């Protein structure tokens, strides 16, 4: 299964915002760069989920594909917002540490939320005017989110992914 490499999505974003031969970068390129930055985090998350519960060794299987494709954008955002809460909602209390998530996961979570909002605006808010710095900021935040997710305590990352797959009722 050709997993999308999040680094490639960030590199794609970098290319899109490179200064053209003349004039400012195109709006379509700046917007697509913001979108790519978000999708890098999204695919990072989906792949981590499928790797955790099916296994990277099974990336060619239909079961891996099913789990990878099960990741819903809104569900990721909602869980990230929950993970960032200083006091989790009651139904999450049995499943999260009393200390909450550590700094790495908090940074990843806020990066996901921000970039999802920015992606939606980049794709649909036609009245917004994008600047190069908007795309540069989105890419930088996305890369930080990815680095922090990978650096996070493995138990916290596993806890987050479990909640994503099996939200408490």
């Amino acid at each position, binding site marked *: 299964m050709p997993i999308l490499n999040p680094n490639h999505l960030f590199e794609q974003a970098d290319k899109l915002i490179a200064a053209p031969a003349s*004039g*400012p*970068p*195109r*709006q379509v390129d700046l917007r697509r760069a913001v979108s790519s930055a978000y999708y890098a985090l999204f695919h990072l998350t989906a792949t981590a989920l499928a790797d955790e519960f099916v296994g990277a060794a099974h990336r060619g299987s239909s079961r891996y594909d099913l789990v990878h494709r099960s990741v819903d954008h*809104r569900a990721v*955002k909602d869980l990230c*917002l929950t993970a*960032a*809460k*200083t*006091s989790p909602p009651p139904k999450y209390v049995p499943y999260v540490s009393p200390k909450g998530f550590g*700094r790495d996961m*908090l*940074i990843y979570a*806020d*990066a996901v*939320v*921000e970039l*999802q*909002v920015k992606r*939606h*605006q980049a794709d649909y808010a036609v009245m917004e*005017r994008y*600047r*190069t*710095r*908007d795309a540069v*900021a989105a*890419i*930088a*935040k*996305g*890369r*930080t*989110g990815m*680095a*922090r997710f990978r650096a996070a305590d493995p138990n916290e990352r596993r806890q987050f992914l479990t909640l994503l797959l099996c939200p408490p009722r």
Partner: protein
Amino acid sequence: MSEPSVELDGLDAVRVTIVLSNDDVAVTGDAAMNTIVDIHQALQRAGDDRFPLVDFMTEDELASDADLEPEPSF
């Protein structure tokens, strides 16, 4: 600077713009995300559930639209 609440794609948010002096070093992704998390946590401690959408710009960037693509003419 902050603006009144906005609702974006179902998310209650507050826009925050941090204006840097022109001499300040560019903000890294790490610095930006640490600031966002700090603001987010501070808002919650104050009883505010809104998500902070934080942008950084210099005084010159605040005043300028210089690198915008011209409006299409079609």
